[in-house]
């Protein structure tokens, strides 16, 4: 299986190393050709405004949406969650607008308010270390979104079908449980697309 990591800016190296540590192939996605033959896509932490400008300038928005329509699993961390969201509080326009959540940017405060905490995550486990850096949170979710973790009453991790999005940075820790959870989503998608192509 091959996982792409959007590599326009941000915590790309960390995601690639973590994916490789689980024995999977990981590739940087900078241009259109890098999107071919992927089984899943990670949208890393970084600055969402900067990443958005670069997505626009290199015409990557529509190709990523098209992969999403084919069912490709996508995992957004922090800025990546903001890119996935269908709505952003105080912004007229969303970015990729794929996952049915409303996110609020910088909602825990500025950098001096950034923090680490341990989370209890449904379906995954307890004591998951989470690093929140100028983090967003999920203000509200649509009907088919499963809330997987909250911190102080705020939603910080959710799943909607093929999409997984979190406010924090699992890639900055040694705990790969959340990534493994995503890899299972990728594996399921891979198996079902194989089954589909065989039945044709």
């Amino acid at each position: 299986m091959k996982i792409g990591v959007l590599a326009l800016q941000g915590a790309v190296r960390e995601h690639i190393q973590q994916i490789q540590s689980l024995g999977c192939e990981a590739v940087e996605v900078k241009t259109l050709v890098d999107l071919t033959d992927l089984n899943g896509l990670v949208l890393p932490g970084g600055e969402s405004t900067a990443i958005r400008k670069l997505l626009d300038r290199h015409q990557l928005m529509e190709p990523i949406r098209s992969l999403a329509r084919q069912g490709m699993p996508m995992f957004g961390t922090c800025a990546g969650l903001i890119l996935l969201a269908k709505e952003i509080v105080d912004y007229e326009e969303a970015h990729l607008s794929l996952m049915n959540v409303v996110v609020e940017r910088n909602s825990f405060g500025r950098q001096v308010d950034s923090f680490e905490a341990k989370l209890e995550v449904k379906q995954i486990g307890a004591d998951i270390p989470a690093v929140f850096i100028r983090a967003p949170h999920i203000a509200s979710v649509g009907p088919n979104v499963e809330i997987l973790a909250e911190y102080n009453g705020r939603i910080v991790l959710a799943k909607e079908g093929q999409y997984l999005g979190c406010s924090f940075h699992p890639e900055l820790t040694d705990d790969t449980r959340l990534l493994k959870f995503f890899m299972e989503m990728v594996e399921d998608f891979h198996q079902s697309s194989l089954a589909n192509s065989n039945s044709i």
Partner: protein
Amino acid sequence: MKLLGTERVKRGMAEMQKGGVIMDVINAEQAKIAEASGAVAVMALERVPSDIRKAGGVARMADPRIVEEVMNAVSIPVMAKARIGHIVEARVLEAMGVDYIDESEVLTPADEEYHLLKSDYTVPFVCGCRDLGEAARRIGEGASMLRTKGEPGTGNIVEAVRHIRKVNAQVRRVVGMNEDELMTEAKILGAPYELLVEIKRLGRLPVVNFAAGGVATPADAALMMELGADGVFVGSGIFKSENPEKFARAIVEATTHFKDYQLIADISKELGSPMKGIEISTLLDSERMQERGW
């Protein structure tokens, strides 16, 4: 339990800036131009380095009003500079909620012997370096991010090239050394031994290292990425150019796609004049900002 200002939170913030461009700005309008161009952060200043050179005298922390104005204008992180060793300027910027403090040789040092104990603060710090000894001393004091010093405000990339090459060559040397050689290397470099052990284990510096001090064109930014910088600071290079919007945008793109030479050719077309540069050899010793810091 909630842990604030941990090493991971402070270094992690810099990790999120990788592959990006941090731009010097002096007001809200410039900050908005920087954000719209795709900057990952802005550095709020009273004057850009080339104007600090021209003005002469003592360069201090910016008027908090300017920093506040910039913080209110953009949603990306805002950095600000404090003088080397100036505990109170740093505490004031921290109290204002600045996202990163640059303990900077661009300002006139407040202490000619000691740098700030940066591990004491909740806010993270970035510091300049010219070699691995200096880089490691700053990390030892708690810097969460490094940048080359280059020679600020000159629009001349030569010093930044010298510094990034030197740091990276020294890192490679440490990584290739036997463990029993590290203590002597620590003594030679003036670097904390434990950090050299960590560098050898990781195969790289434990914090992000950006390029700074002389970046004036998209090709300069791409060159620094090619030489192994994690990202780029542009000081005077944007708002002292003929067309700041275009320069800002082009430098952002060149930093991300630093190996796409055709793209760099395209975005460099008809950009207008970059900032006027200064040949380093014409600077007096007292005008070389990179000599500040110990």
